[in-house]
């Protein structure tokens, strides 16, 4: 059973087709980062998973059930921190827990524990109306966690936060990840996603345009730039014998960034008399990858550059709409 499974989901608002056959699978225990430009449909997807919206077409299962049934097992942090301002943080947590059917001393203890976790223990008796944006976001995390949900849906958790607020939220995400929570994290903050997520998907034009494991990105390849196109036969044959995948494209040779394979490739090239001009990372990180994917989407028939497609996994979740 997947924590989240959407299959060929379509959603339209008035004249705007937001999702066009979007398919996604998130495994239990994963932290999944969903990237995409403004208006790509990330918040729409979160609202579909929460059952606030109904898909026009396609199937959605959250924790193996329809969203409306799974609702009580989800924790939601909305993008815009809008909360009921006439309550104190402690009262708010109590009320949110009570709305989930919790009650008694266990709820009070849980409230206190969560306020301590998000660093609001000192402000428990302050009215939410007087909170800064960072404090509201942290309260939002506590509200999302109060009923011990099995899946967390975080929509732009660092949106509008100052750097220290972003750091605090980042620490919270690290803590939640260490507790093995399943999280779907929508964000524009590429560094945040790269730091916290196991897998990343890029939502563009209503489909999952690309998906990758962050570990694949981190175990990135390097590009060796040589002085000529067309390698001499001994060099080409030598590279073919290496255990690691080697891709030769013009003057660029990409190999896995493991010490042994890089050194072996360099030795083969130098022994064959090929001059090495530069050795650099094949891809700079998630930011570069994201931009490359978005640029490729903008081109007619847009194919991903080979250097990018090396990192992008064939989406195991590719849906009908993407084929």
């Amino acid at each position: 059973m997947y924590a989240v499974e959407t299959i060929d989901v379509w959603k339209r608002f008035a004249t705007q087709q937001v999702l066009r056959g979007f398919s996604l699978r998130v495994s239990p225990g994963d932290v999944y980062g969903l990237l995409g430009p403004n208006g790509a449909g990330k918040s729409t997807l979160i609202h579909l998973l929460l059952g606030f919206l109904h898909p026009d077409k396609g199937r959605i299962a959250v924790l193996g059930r329809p969203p409306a049934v799974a609702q009580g097992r989800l924790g939601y942090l909305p993008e815009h921190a809008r909360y009921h301002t006439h309550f104190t943080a402690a009262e708010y947590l109590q009320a949110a827990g009570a709305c989930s059917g919790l009650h008694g001393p266990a709820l009070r203890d849980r409230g206190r524990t969560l306020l301590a976790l998000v660093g609001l223990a000192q402000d428990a008796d302050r009215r939410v109306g007087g909170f800064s944006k960072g404090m509201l976001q942290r309260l939002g995390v506590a509200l999302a966690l109060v009923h011990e949900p099995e899946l967390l849906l975080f929509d732009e958790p660092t949106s509008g936060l100052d750097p220290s607020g972003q750091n605090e939220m980042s620490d919270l995400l690290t803590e939640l990840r260490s507790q093995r929570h399943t999280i779907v994290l929508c964000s524009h903050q590429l560094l945040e996603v790269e730091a916290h997520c196991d897998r990343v998907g890029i939502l563009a034009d209503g489909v999952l345009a690309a998906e990758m494991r962050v570990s694949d990105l981190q175990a990135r390849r390097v590009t060796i730039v040589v002085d000529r196109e067309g390698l001499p036969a001994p060099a080409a044959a030598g590279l073919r014998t290496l255990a690691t995948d080697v891709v030769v494209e013009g003057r660029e040779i990409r190999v896995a960034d493991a010490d042994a394979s890089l050194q072996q490739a360099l030795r083969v090239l130098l022994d064959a008399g090929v001059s090495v001009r530069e050795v650099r990372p094949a891809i700079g990180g998630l930011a570069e990858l994201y931009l490359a994917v978005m640029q490729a989407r903008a081109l007619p028939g847009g194919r991903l550059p080979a250097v990018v497609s090396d990192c992008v996994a064939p989406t195991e979740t590719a849906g009908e709409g993407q084929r």
Partner: protein
Amino acid sequence: MSAWSRGTMAFAGFTLQEYLRSGRIAVEGVAVLAAVWLLFWPRSASGLDGRLFFSLGGLFLLALGAYTAMAIMRLGNRPQGYVLLARRLGRSGYLLGLYLASIIVVLATYLSLSLVVALIYALYRLPLNLTLAGWWLGTVPLVLDMALAAAFMTLLSPLVMSAAPRLTILALFVVALSTDLTKMAALPIANVLGPLQMLLGLPLLPVMGGFALAVQQTYGPGALGIIAGQVVVGWALLTAAVYAFERRDLILSS
């Protein structure tokens, strides 16, 4: 009590607290004082007539109840609602919690009005021509009518339905209430309007009957039928509201 019921009650309590703390309740408070001054202030020595209390007070409370239900539904139609909706409470609990909160405010308003009027007449040592038993007999159908009005406003709130079905229901309501439409319309239209009006007017019968029962405070042979009719119509309106709310795309107003 199930977790869902507990959640619904808790949410109704939460909404009530917000209604009080945000000061919105002041509207009801001022309205009660204004009603006491304008409608029930003793200006002669004749005392309070029970029929007058329930007819004028009933109309005032029905209007105020409709306002309160609208105000509380507006309270629920804000993005703040998302964090509470994403819980075991669900949509039906959310809507019923809002409805329950509005009913509690309406009831509190009615009790305040009754108490203030009784106190004033006691203070002026004027006769209160309404026994406690008469008050109870008038209160039951009046409160049911108020609950019904609140259910109707819940159904018609933008939180529950989009503009087109709301306008359609309002148009049908106007047709049901109009008495001269069949006389004014051309014959072929009148042939359609007549039966339509009769059909649409059926749910209004318990409402009107309930109001008359409250004013008279005398329960004849059909009284229990009227009260049962009020309960059925109120239940049907609420069920329709929950059904519509469950099925719509939820985009809370910002």
